[in-house]
């Protein structure tokens, strides 16, 4: 990994603006007034993680994930008796001399992990709850997390697909493999703008309709959609799914008082509420209830459900993601 890092540092291509700024070679932070999406420390943290999947799926190319399959790897796994047709190349001749039996040496086959990262780009993801333009939006956090996960996957030589969606699937970077692709990913994420309504059912159906290899599926969204849970249930046991729910601090703990006419930034719909103490308690209860429903759904299918907040450090949230078992040191 450090080799990879050295190679990137010496490459002549231009990194994304925040990246360059964090290295002291570019202009000031981005025009939005925020720090860069992917700074140096951010990438340094990623170097320590490795993304794996509990269900390793054999791919067409060899990766760094150990597979249960015995094959042509370099790490010895076991012996088995020789049968006709086996290549004499794998016969353990010293064992033959000692035991007078033809034994075939088996090696643990290393496979690649197909990773698909689905990023919600609906308007609700870009809503600045504080309204001052300085706070990190849910979309910023989602992009950072997506970049981190893609980066780790590419570092492990896994095949990564980055798909955006709102009402349906949008732009997609397919077949990313190898660390060199990360720059392309950064540019793509920088160019995204949140817009449109969220429709998980239509978007995920659209995603499933295209032929894909099963592997790790990471969905990053705020899941503010009535069809989110039913859409997740469409994924069968063949998928290894990680649902990352992005929430802002004001969504988790709204600061409302008196009568308020709430306006949905996606649909323009309105809801008149009396933001009393009981109302806010009901909201928190309902939010907690929804979290529990997602967790229950994911637990039943051995998936992971991770909550991320915009007011928490990114490193902590990455650590939380990798602690779920998808990341091995």
């Amino acid at each position: 990994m450090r080799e990879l890092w050295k190679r990137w540092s010496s490459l002549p291509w231009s990194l994304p603006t925040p990246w360059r700024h964090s290295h002291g070679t570019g202009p000031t932070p981005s025009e939005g007034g925020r720090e860069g999406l992917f700074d140096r420390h951010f990438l340094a943290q990623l170097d320590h993680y490795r993304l794996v999947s509990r269900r390793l799926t054999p791919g067409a190319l060899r990766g760094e994930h150990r597979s249960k399959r015995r094959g042509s790897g370099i790490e010895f796994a076991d012996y088995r008796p020789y049968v006709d047709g086996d290549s004499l190349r794998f016969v353990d001749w010293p064992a033959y001399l000692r035991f007078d039996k033809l034994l075939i040496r088996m090696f643990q086959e290393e496979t690649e992990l197909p990773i698909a990262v689905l990023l919600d780009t609906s308007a609700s993801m870009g809503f600045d709850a504080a309204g001052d333009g300085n706070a990190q939006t849910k979309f910023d956090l989602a992009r950072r997390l997506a970049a981190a996960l893609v980066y780790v996957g590419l570092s492990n030589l896994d095949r990564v697909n980055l798909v955006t969606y709102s009402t349906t699937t949008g732009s997609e970077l397919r077949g990313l493999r190898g660390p060199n692709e990360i720059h392309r990913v950064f540019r793509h994420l920088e160019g995204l703008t949140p817009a449109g309504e969220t429709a998980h059912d239509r978007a995920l159906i659209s995603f499933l309709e295209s032929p894909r290899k099963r592997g790790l599926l990471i969905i990053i969204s705020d899941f503010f959609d009535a069809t989110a849970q039913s859409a997740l249930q469409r994924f069968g046991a063949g998928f290894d799914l990680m649902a990352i729910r992005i929430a802002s601090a004001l969504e988790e703990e709204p600061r409302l008082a008196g009568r308020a006419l709430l306006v949905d930034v996606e649909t323009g719909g309105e809801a008149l509420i009396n933001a009393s103490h009981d109302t806010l308690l009901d909201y928190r209860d309902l939010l907690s209830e929804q979290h529990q429903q997602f967790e229950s759904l994911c637990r039943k299918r051995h998936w992971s459900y991770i909550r991320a907040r915009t007011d928490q450090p990114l490193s902590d949230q990455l650590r939380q993601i990798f602690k779920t078992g998808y990341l091995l040191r």
Partner: protein
Amino acid sequence: MSPATLSFSTLPYALAVAVLLSTAAAVILLYLLRPPARRQPVSSILLWEEVARRRRRKRDLLRWLLSLLVSAAIALLIGMAFTGAQRAAPELTRPRLVIDTSATMGARSGGRQTRLDRALSTARRLIRNAAPPITISDTTGGVNSGELRSRRAALEKLDELELHAARPPRIPGSSSDGRPLWVVTDGVADLGAPDGAAIVSVFEPEPNVGLTRFAVTQRRARQPAALLEVTNAGPREAAVEVAISDQEGRVFARQTLSLEAGELWSATVRLEPLPTLEAQWFRATVTSPDDALDLDDQAWVVTQALLPRRLQVHGVCEPIDRVVAADPTLTALRPGPDLEVKRYEVDVWYHDAPVERPGGPTLLVNPPDRPWLPVEQAAAPAIFAETSWALPGVAPRHVAFEALRRYSVPQAETLWTGEDAPLLFVLGSEAEPPRIAVLSFDPEASSVHLDAQFPALVELALDALSLTVAKPPREAGWSGYADDEADRPQLVKLSHSKGRAEISAIEPLGAEVTDINRRRTEATTASPAAAAWSPEVVLVLLALALLAVEFALRQRGYLE
């Protein structure tokens, strides 16, 4: 208002309601003028809509519970409001209600309710606290419902009750069958309530001036006169205007009086000569401000039709001729050759007499001695002490009208004797009516035949000889008159149709009608308390109305 009494419960009812309404209006105004909701963009209203739905469900549940509590409170307070009535009226089971519908129950003053209206309100309160079956009846026999099986039917039966002025009030079916008897009356009439009956009084003293007597004397075609008696039965002095008119609308007399409380005023009024022999009526009217009872403010008298009578006059009699000339009902016939074929009702002899005792009605004026005529009667030996006239020119006071009217005059009964020694008597027997009247006086010593009294004497004699006798006027103190219902002057009510007066019914009125403030039946039970709307009830009703308004506004989307 002192601080000690300054509380909501001591406020007058209207002021309390006004305070409550003002408070409610202020609350509604402040509610409508509350600041508008602040617009707040959010990522999604998905959760908020669900929160709003849940809170709406909670609020609806709370609202229904609150409405239930308010309804229960209202029912409780209304029940407490009616508790007074239930306390005042003992438990009524199968009651018999008798409502007084006599004439005095129509007393009304100042545009308020009549006594009958108050009695009906009292009866309704009683019925609402009574257990069926209920019997409703009045005191004049107009309504007798029998046993009514429901309160609703009993309440509807009350609407049929109306005043009956002419019938004497009595409690119907006084036989006790063990059912409680409740009588609602003003107490003026003597109802003869049985023992144990609960008497509820709706009496309130009312100002009233009315006619207690009205009569018109009628002596042939002579000038009639009216006897008028007006009583102020009210508790205060009253100004009264009295008028007498005839069926042509002519007003004979009009007088304004001021009567003290309880004062009785009477007078005789000389009327115009009757223009016709037909029956006609006279009307007396009293008018007084704030009079409570209209029923006794007018009275009518119908005079009898006059019958023409023919007199066969023997000899020259100038006084009789004057009488005949002044009375259009009399015709004088002279005996002639065809005397036998002429018809006449009375034979008149002046200073003469038939040789034989006559068989038909005969008037002898100063007859000479005849064998069949008692000399002692013709000599007029008795002189009565009093000769005053009760009604001048009409009737003497001390004539034995009783005997005269009933034709039971004994032989040689003295009818009248004057100071100047005129004597009028009739001859008859117990078994047959008088046939001979003798008018005797001394022409040398008396000028009665030239006096104005002489026509009255002739008329009196002719009445005594006639089959139809005009009734004398009713005056106080005449024995045998007050108990004779048929002899009372008839007061009639008229109904006016298209401006034309017509006699619709003849109903005699008693003097007690005017006496609307004299109580003969005492109350034994307090009137049931009216269900009053307490301020608390009004407050609860206002709260319920506010809830209804809020619910309606919410249903129409004006509220969140």
